[in-house]
């Protein structure tokens, strides 16, 4: 431990800590911009400049290590003036059309300028020409708003291991973007949108579907139904001033109904359906491998709910594609069921229906456009909105969100179990699958306190658990005494580590959950900004609370799903399921 003094406050801190960390530990705020928690500081933006007694110049708090006896002044006149000037220089390069910028509510640069009392534009410097890149289904980039903080570069390269974005050129002419400042579709990108999630300004955003959705709602000839992913209800409230971790399921339902959707449904329903299909698929693969000695039964099996991960596997791990569950994601299962089963129920043709999804995700916009996602004969999911877009639409509809009464989702596709809720969290799909698969095999409930598999919860990058299977049902006696080994990874960098461990034989599992974004869907690229680990943990707790508040906690107990099988699908992995709910993957050439 070493001792430093910041703003007159004596602080004891572990050796190797930065001034920023020391200040934070003592509750002293220092403004930052390029800094991202848990990542190597860049010191690129200079917004965190502080004064250190005896130092020749001001130093960046994020990247300067503490030394014994150091005396730091955060708010001296020199540091305050320098930080203000830094932000003024950033503003001089930034295309600040704040009135119409979609980040005007939560722009970090605007907030910094306001906090520092900048009321006039001091410098009128050269600016990059506006260049809009809308070459991909999920994301839009505008370089004229970019302030070159490089957070997107850090997250794309270090967290996700993709590297679609990188600084191009140098000096004043530097552009943050794909190769040679070209368009995003010219390089490998899985559309996860983590760049949009960390961008402090309006330089990277989702490609909006708001106008399309209003047009559909305004069209009397269309029956417009909406599904909301489980992660939305634990985050949407943040857009309306609720603290992170506030559950707003009921108010969200009322808002959607008042916006004019003909039916308000739940992606959760399809999550329960996914568990029925995927759980059965896992058990079938185990049987083929263990009983039939079928070498083509690829194990471990990987989940396939997260479209960024699916594309990641298609680009980087084509040899593992046989290992991915053939199940479509809940979003796409919902679309296929809504435009067939539900359309028949209400006597509509699939082409007269519009399915809108609200997702925490930008990759879902890409997924809905995959050419094969038309099992109903038309596009199964027409439009995908992010959580942020839904919030904008609620404001456009002049709804006082916090005043809205709680509503209930519609039957039958609005009914779900708690197992579906936890799809939103890293480890949740796995836990939901285990709740069902264990009960199918043994006839008994999963032997875990409150049905939670603790070792696979939380924000550790790679998690694992083992489950002993005993006293099996006769049909599953081949699993008697077996130990089911599972693993969970979130963030594609962690997924890559896990895959390399499996490839080298260092680790062996039966079933693996991968989610593209850190924390799972609750930390998705379409969620309210800004998402750090503190926010992630609060959303995760909210999701578990939502799960525990449900009467039904297991997917196989969902009566609406049972009815769907009885009246329409037949059985899990049956012919009709296969047609509507399953898909295939193909290797993609990296760009």
């Amino acid at each position, binding site marked *: 431990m070493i001792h430093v003094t910041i703003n007159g406050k004596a602080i004891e801190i572990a050796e190797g800590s930065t001034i920023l960390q020391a200040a934070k530990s003592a509750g002293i705020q220092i403004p930052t911009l390029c800094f991202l928690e848990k990542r190597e500081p860049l010191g690129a933006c200079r917004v965190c400049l502080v004064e250190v007694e005896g130092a020749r110049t001001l130093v960046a708090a994020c990247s300067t290590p503490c030394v014994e006896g150091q005396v730091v002044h955060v708010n001296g006149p020199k540091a305050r003036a320098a930080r203000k000037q830094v932000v003024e220089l950033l503003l001089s390069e930034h295309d600040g059309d704040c009135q119409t910028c979609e980040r005007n509510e939560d722009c970090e640069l605007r907030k910094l300028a306001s906090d520092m009392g900048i009321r006039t534009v001091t410098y009128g410097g050269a600016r990059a020409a506006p260049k809009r890149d809308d070459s991909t289904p999920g994301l839009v980039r505008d370089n004229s708003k970019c302030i070159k903080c490089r957070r997107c570069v850090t997250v794309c*390269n270090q967290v996700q291991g*993709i*590297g679609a*974005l*990188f600084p*191009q050129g*140098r000096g004043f002419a530097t552009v943050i973007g*794909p*190769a*040679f400042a070209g368009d995003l579709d010219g390089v490998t990108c899985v559309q996860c949108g983590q760049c949009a999630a960390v961008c402090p300004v309006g330089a990277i955003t989702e490609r909006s579907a708001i106008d399309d959705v209003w047009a559909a709602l305004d069209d009397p000839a269309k029956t417009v139904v909406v599904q909301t992913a489980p992660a939305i209800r634990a985050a949407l409230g943040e857009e309306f001033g609720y603290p992170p971790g506030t559950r707003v399921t009921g108010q969200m339902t009322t808002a959607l109904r008042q916006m004019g959707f003909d039916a308000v449904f739940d992606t959760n329903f399809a999550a329960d359906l996914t568990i029925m299909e995927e759980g059965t698929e896992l058990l079938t693969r185990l049987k083929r491998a263990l009983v039939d000695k079928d070498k083509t039964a690829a194990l471990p099996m990987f989940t396939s709910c997260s479209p960024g991960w699916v594309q990641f596997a298609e680009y980087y791990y084509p040899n593992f594609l046989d290992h991915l569950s053939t199940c479509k994601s809940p979003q796409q299962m919902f679309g296929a069921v809504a435009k067939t089963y539900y359309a028949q129920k209400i006597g509509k043709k699939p082409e007269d229906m519009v399915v809108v999804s609200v997702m925490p995700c930008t990759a879902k916009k890409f997924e809905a456009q995959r050419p094969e996602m038309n099992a109903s004969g038309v596009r199964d999911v027409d439009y995908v909105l992010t959580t942020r877009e839904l919030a904008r639409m609620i404001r456009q509809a002049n709804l006082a969100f916090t005043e809205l009464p709680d509503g209930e989702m519609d039957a039958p596709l609005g009914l779900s179990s708690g197992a579906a809720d936890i799809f939103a969290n890293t480890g949740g799909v796995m836990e939901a699958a285990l709740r069902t698969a264990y009960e199918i095999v043994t006839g008994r409930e999963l032997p875990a306190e409150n049905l939670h598999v603790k070792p696979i919860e939380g924000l550790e990058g790679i998690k694992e658990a083992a489950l002993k299977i005993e006293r099996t049902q006769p049909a599953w006696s081949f699993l008697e005494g077996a130990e089911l080994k599972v693993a969970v990874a979130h963030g594609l960098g962690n997924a890559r580590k896990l895959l390399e461990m499996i490839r080298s034989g260092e680790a062996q599992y039966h079933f693996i959950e991968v989610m593209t974004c850190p924390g799972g869907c609750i930390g998705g690229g379409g969620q309210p900004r800004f998402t750090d680990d503190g926010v992630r943990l609060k959303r995760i707790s909210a999701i578990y609370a939502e799960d525990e508040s449900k009467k039904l906690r297991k997917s196989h107990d969902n009566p609406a799903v049972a009815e769907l099988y009885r009246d329409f699908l037949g059985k899990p992995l049956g012919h009709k399921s296969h047609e509507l709910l399953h898909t295939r993957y193909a290797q993609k050439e990296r760009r």
Partner: protein
Amino acid sequence: MTKTCTCACAEAAPDEAELMKRLDDVLAEQKDKPGGLIPALQTAQAIFGYLPESVLRRVAQAFDKSYSEVAGVVSFYSFFSTVPRGKYLVRVCLGTACYVRGGNEVLRAMKDKLGIDVGGTTPDRQFSLEVGRCFGACGMAPVLMVNDDLHQRVKPAKIGELLEKYRAPAQEARP
């Protein structure tokens, strides 16, 4: 002849496959070395005369880096070019010493005489023009390089004469 011809001229050019094989040999040697990317790019540019997209994608793959990262490195250094270059690469130094001793006037005269801008190549594919950032010959400023030849204390008025020596039909005619 200059030692390294940086041009993409067709004179006895080995075919693409042969060049790619040479590139692969270089990549195999460099890819596991820390900091091997820049030397590999330099060698690749020497082989091909410039760095076309197909070459950069191959380099990215060999080093297991994203194309955007490799492009970022290539676009950072003025030495690298992604467009074919002329037979002679003229690099006018604008480092501090050359700049204060009239490097900019030399550059302007060079642009005039060649009729191209920085980064450009003459239509006859004879000359490409780039800006250099210090060749370590500050005592002789302002300097410029034509391929591997260093020209010292260059006067803007003498640029035409300087270029004429390279334009001469007999290639052996060297200054």
